[in-house]
């Protein structure tokens, strides 16, 4: 399960028309996991307990930001098409490829829609060894 503690987490921040989350973690893969959890939280989804399913995905990119938007966009697509959400994520960055093993369950309900993940002012920063960023979603 994606844990939220002092060293990693997410919080919604104000945006006039769309939605945004600030995300932080002491690891880059942790930042991606928190971003996924934050995005699911914005959509107010409820998942079933079983059965758990797993899936492998590959995202191409050339920096952390393109990987992050590509990864979250893939999760959005899987939510819409497969009605699945993932809470156990293993990520491996390898040059221009991000490989991820996803484990999760079926979505029972979803109250809010996220149309897209944006690059607006997106910058993954490393501050005192911790990663943090703010992601704006079109809703």
């Amino acid at each position: 399960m994606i844990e939220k503690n002092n060293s990693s987490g997410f919080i919604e921040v104000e945006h006039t028309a769309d939605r945004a989350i600030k995300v932080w973690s002491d690891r880059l893969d942790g930042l991606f996991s928190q971003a996924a959890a934050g995005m699911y939280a914005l959509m107010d989804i409820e998942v079933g307990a079983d059965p758990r399913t797993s899936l492998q995905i590959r995202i191409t990119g050339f920096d952390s930001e393109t990987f992050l938007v590509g990864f979250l966009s893939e999760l959005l697509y899987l939510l819409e098409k497969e009605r699945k959400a993932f809470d156990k994520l293993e990520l491996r960055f390898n040059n221009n490829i991000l490989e991820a093993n996803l484990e999760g369950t079926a979505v029972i309900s979803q109250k809010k829609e996220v149309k897209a993940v944006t690059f607006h002012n997106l910058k993954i920063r490393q501050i005192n060894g911790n990663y943090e960023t703010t992601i704006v979603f079109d809703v």
Partner: protein
Amino acid sequence: MIALHAFRKISDYEWEIPASLRKSMLASVRVFATRKLLESSLDDLSLEQAINAAALPGLAGPVIIMPDMHQGYGFPIGGVAATRLPDGVISPGAIGYDINCGVRLLASAISFDEAEPFLDDLITALDQNCPSGVGKKGEWNLSGDELDQVCRQGARWALKKGMASEEDLRRSEEEGCMEGADPARVSGRAKERGRSQLGTLGAGNHFLEIDVIEQVFDRTAAQAMGLVEGNLALQIHCGSRGFGHQICTDYVQDFQSVVRRFGINIPDRELVCAPVNSSEGEAYLGAMRAAANYAFANRQILAHQARKAFETVLAGKVRNAFLHQVYDVVHNMAKFETHSINGEQVKVCVHRKGATRAFGPGTPGLPEEYRMIGQPVLVPGSMGTSSWVLLGTQESMEKSYGSTCHGAGRVMSRSRAKKEVNGEKLLERLESQGIHVRAGSLPGLAEEAPEAYKDVDQVVETVCGAGIGRKAAMLRPVAVIKG
């Protein structure tokens, strides 16, 4: 954040941020706002985003900002930018994810007085006929070939299926079909999402609203549009659904490397772009037009479904339950147009994001019946407040690339609206005003509360004061479905 002293006042309704303000700016920013509206917009990133948009290569003139501006992502909502053809850029983020999100207005000969006892039945029937809300699918499950036809034909596809009339098409921007759509430039993933969502409203700020035509300001224009005081009208606000969202997502991601290849520097990665005449720019244009046509077909199908709801509920109760098309306008799109810029006729790619085309009288592209009055512009208010029918003017052609405002414009975040507005009390308040409401959820309703938006009347006064629109009629809501 930009401060008020950075603006040069041109008139009570026009302000300018000179191109000299930032090194990145390649053009000035022209803002249509009263001082009050301008000051209220300094609290968020709208104008910073406008300054960033002024860095798009190939701008032919100022970036225009409408009084309903608010912070978006990359490009502000309420923004218009014209890039010179053929080598200026096209930016998917400056159009938005909901490609051809727009509004259609249908009007009727049904008086409010005779329909009033049946309003609740009407809104229930509309709710049943027009699927809305998160993840809702339509009754169409298109084959690959059918989806390609929708992409190429737009609302004309609906005409062939018996869900439209020639008048519906004639009274739509681009006659409901953008030329040059290329479904081959659309990803398989976008097509997968598009197959099942045609004929659906969606969620968020999308809505169906029954209005009463409260006041007519221009009798000649109202007559041309068939707007009669005291009669019912219907607004449909929606776009290209997951199909358009996926197309924009795909191209914004692709263009991240395209800008590097072309050596384009932009202040915000959401503004990534490509020269219009590059293979990448042409690919996006073909895909964007496919999404635009999907949205035209979508609003046409919803209009057809709405007509069926009106017929079902009002048959035998009113003399004529038909809803005729007034016009269908686009809010998020890039189009090739010719405008007079510094006394020169210039062919440009006009990006409108949260802004409406507002062609003045005599402009080619308007249907015969509207050629003398100018293009109808539909400006929905926030839930529970007035909406407006405006007309394009000669000044909108001269000052704003034939564009004007698109709505009220948000001032409050969704999370704050949910904290400050109780959905249940809002529902009671709207019902006490005689407005019948159907909403996906009460928190969702609270997010769209009138207090989360600017006063649409002030927005309209501003564009009319600036001359980039003129009043034709005002509508009052009596029933609403929120997605």
